[in-house]
C-alpha cells in the first residue's frame, strides 16, 4: 500500500481547489449577468417579463440546488443530450446564482426612497433616466455588501457538484479519503481550504458594509 504524506494529500486537494475557484468565478460572473437581465425584467414595466422573472426566481429559490444539478445532469441525459459534468455544474450554478442575485438586487432597488423617484420625475426625467442617473447608482452602493456576502454561498454551493462527478475540492477530498483511509484529516483539510476561500469574502462584505454605511449615515 502506498503511503501518502501530508504534503501529498494537501497538494492534491489544492490542485482540485483550482476547479472550485474557477467554478465559483464562472458561476458568479455568469450568474451576475443572467441576474441583471432578471432584475430588469422583474422591476421593468412589462407584465410578461415580471411574471417570468418572478416565476424563475421562485422556482430556483424553492428547489434545492442539488435537484437542479441532478436535473441538469441526468435530465438532459435522458433527452439524449450528453452533458459533461462541468457543463451541467456550471449551468446549474449560474442559473441558481442568478435567481438569488436578482432578488437581492431587487431589494436594493426597491429600498430607494419613493421621494427619489418623485423628485426626479418632477424634474421631467423619464423612467430610464431615473433608473440610470438616480436609482441605480444609489442601489449599486447598497448592493455591494450583500452581493459579496452571497458569493460565499456560491463558493460553498460548488461543493454539491462533486455529486454529479465534477472533480473540485470536495470530490478530491472523497477521492483522497478512499485512498488514504484518513477521512478526518482529509475532510479537515478540505474544510480549512473552504474556510480560507470564504472567510476573506465574508470579512470584506462586513468591512464594505461598515464603510458604505459610514459614508451614508445621514440619510
Amino acid at each position, binding site marked *: 500500500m502506498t503511503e501518502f504524506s501530508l504534503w501529498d494529500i494537501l497538494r492534491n486537494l489544492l490542485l482540485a481547489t483550482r476547479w472550485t475557484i474557477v467554478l465559483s468565478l464562472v458561476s458568479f460572473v455568469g450568474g451576475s449577468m443572467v441576474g441583471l437581465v432578471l432584475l430588469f425584467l422583474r422591476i421593468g414595466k412589462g407584465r410578461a417579463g415580471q411574471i417570468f422573472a418572478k416565476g424563475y426566481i421562485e422556482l430556483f429559490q424553492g428547489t434545492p440546488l442539488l435537484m437542479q444539478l441532478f436535473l441538469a445532469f441526468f435530465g438532459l441525459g435522458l433527452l439524449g443530450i450528453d452533458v459533461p459534468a462541468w457543463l451541467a455544474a456550471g449551468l446549474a450554478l449560474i442559473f441558481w446564482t442568478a435567481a438569488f442575485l436578482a432578488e437581492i438586487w431587487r431589494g436594493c432597488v426597491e429600498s430607494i*426612497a419613493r*421621494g*427619489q423617484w*418623485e*423628485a*426626479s*420625475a*418632477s*424634474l*421631467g*426625467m*423619464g*423612467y430610464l*433616466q431615473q433608473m440610470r*442617473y*438616480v436609482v441605480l*447608482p*444609489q442601489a449599486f*452602493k447598497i448592493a455591494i455588501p450583500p452581493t459579496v456576502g452571497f458569493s460565499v454561498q456560491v463558493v460553498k454551493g460548488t461543493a454539491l457538484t462533486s455529486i454529479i462527478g465534477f472533480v473540485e475540492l470536495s470530490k478530491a477530498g472523497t477521492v483522497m479519503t478512499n485512498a488514504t483511509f484518513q477521512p478526518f484529516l482529509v475532510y479537515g483539510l478540505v474544510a480549512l481550504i473552504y474556510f480560507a476561500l470564504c472567510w476573506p469574502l465574508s470579512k470584506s462584505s462586513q468591512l464594505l458594509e461598515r464603510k458604505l454605511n459610514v459614508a*451614508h*449615515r*445621514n*440619510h
Partner: protein
Amino acid sequence: MSLIAITEVKKSFGDNQVLKGINIDVMPGEVIAIIGKSGSGKSTLLRCINGLEMIDSGSIMVAGAQLLPDEVHLRALRLKVGMIFQQFNLFPHLTVGGNVILAQTVVKKTPKAEAEAMARKMLDRVGLGHKFDAYPEELSGGQQQRVAIARALAMQPMALLCDEITSALDPELVNEVLAVVKELAAEGMTLLMVTHEMRFARDVCSRVVFMHQGLVHEIGPPGEVFSNPQTPELKQFLGMI
C-alpha cells in the same frame, strides 16, 4: 389668461374620495397658499398638478397645455411646473452642484458648461453658491431645502409647487427657506404652496385657499380669509392654530 387652470378635479384612493371637484385658476405671478386640516386633500391636489397622482376626472391645464397621463405630455408639463417636497429629496449620491446640474443635462440636454453656470447662478440665488461641491448630507435641513429650490429653478419652470416645504425643518431653519420663497414671490414667480405658516401666508400670498373635505371651502385675499372667515369650518381651523 390663467397660468394654471384646475377644473372640477376629482381624485379617489380606493373608496376614499380625496378631491371632490376642485376649481382654482392661478394667474401668472400669483402666490397662492393652500391651507386646511391634514386629510383635506391639499397635498394630493399639488401632486395632481405635477402628475405624481393621476386625476380621475376634471382637467388641469398649465400654460394652455393639458395634463394627460402619457409620458410625453407628463414630461412636457413637468418642465413647466417645478416641485419642492417636504423631505427635500435631494439625490444623496451627487454633490449639491450635481443635483442642480443633472436634470438640465439629462432632460433638457443643456451642454455641461452651460448647465454648470446655471447651477452656480441658482445656488447663488438661494445663498448657497459656496456649497457647490458639498454633499447633501453635509448640509442642514434648511440648506438642503434651498438646494432643492435651486434644483427646481434651474429647469426654469413657469410655476413652483411647494408641498409643506418647511414642515420637516427645525424651527430656527424655517425662516431661511421662507426668505428665499419670499424673494421668488417678489420676483414674480408663480407659486402654489401648501403651508402651515399662517403668518407667511398672510404676508406674502396674493390669495389663500382653504380646503376642507376635498373641496375649496373658501378662497380670497389673505386679509379677508384670515380676518373675516365666512364659514364655521375656517373659523374653527384658524382658531385651532
